């Protein structure tokens, strides 16, 4: 770990924590838009699901 750039540089563990956070947020949104079988979620995202190619109904 070098301190050559600035104090905001991430350590490896911070970068992994950021990566996991982004993956979690992305997967949650992905589930809500594309996979949730809740009827309201399905109906609202209907045309989006078909267009992206999500398996839909």
């Amino acid at each position, binding site marked *: *770990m*070098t301190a*050559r*750039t*600035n104090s*905001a*540089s*991430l*350590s*490896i563990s*911070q*970068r*992994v*924590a*950021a*990566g*996991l*956070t*982004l*993956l*979690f*947020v*992305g*997967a*949650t*949104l*992905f589930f*809500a*838009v*594309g*996979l949730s*079988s809740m*009827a*309201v979620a*399905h*109906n*609202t*995202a*209907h*045309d*989006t699901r*078909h*267009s*992206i*190619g*999500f*398996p*839909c*109904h």
Partner: protein
Amino acid sequence: MIGRVLLAALLAGIAAGLIMGIILHVRLTPLILEAETYETGGHSHDHAADGTTATTEEHTHEAEAWAPADGWQRTLATTATQAMAGAAFAAILAGISLLTGLPITRENGVIWGLCGFLAATVAPAAGLPPELPGMPAGDLLARQVWWVGTIIATGAALYLIATRRETWALALAIFFIGLPHIIGAPAPVTHVSAVPPNLAATFAANAIAANAIFWSLIGIFLGLALNRYAKDAYAT
């Protein structure tokens, strides 16, 4: 810092999703609306066409739930969910980038996007092409599992191809790419459908083409946004 990377990724994805939303309204929604006129049920969101194995319970449930009315409500719902899908894909790409330590930059953003297109559109489309409402299909959960599994396997293969030169890694990559298709996607009981075949083919081709643009934009915008707001994330 995490907040800054997250915000950059979400905004890049939302921007790509909004542009994809325009393409969708011009090229794809008209085909979906046309297909719905062939559906056997009278209600526009009653998807119980002949040959589907989906449970009737699910469909009675759907008929009762709120659905956006055709017109501005449906357009708004589709645009918003498309932006959410863009944000989801951008966050996942950025997450993979941070975990693997492979930066997404202004220079390589489009390559990241096109890898996303290969993994999330092209590979699953070989088994489950983008389909229109009213077309026969296999069990929904089985298809969702196959679809997500194919994306993960293909993504892992692309990672190996991008980072490794050893023979075993390339062999493993070929195995990961091929495995979902050797297992095979859950097939519909029948291919008989009220939806005209050329309408279905036109939709599949247009959807895949639109997703190529969508994913390219996600990659390009993600590269620009991370370059601008989160360049220091990879400094160590």
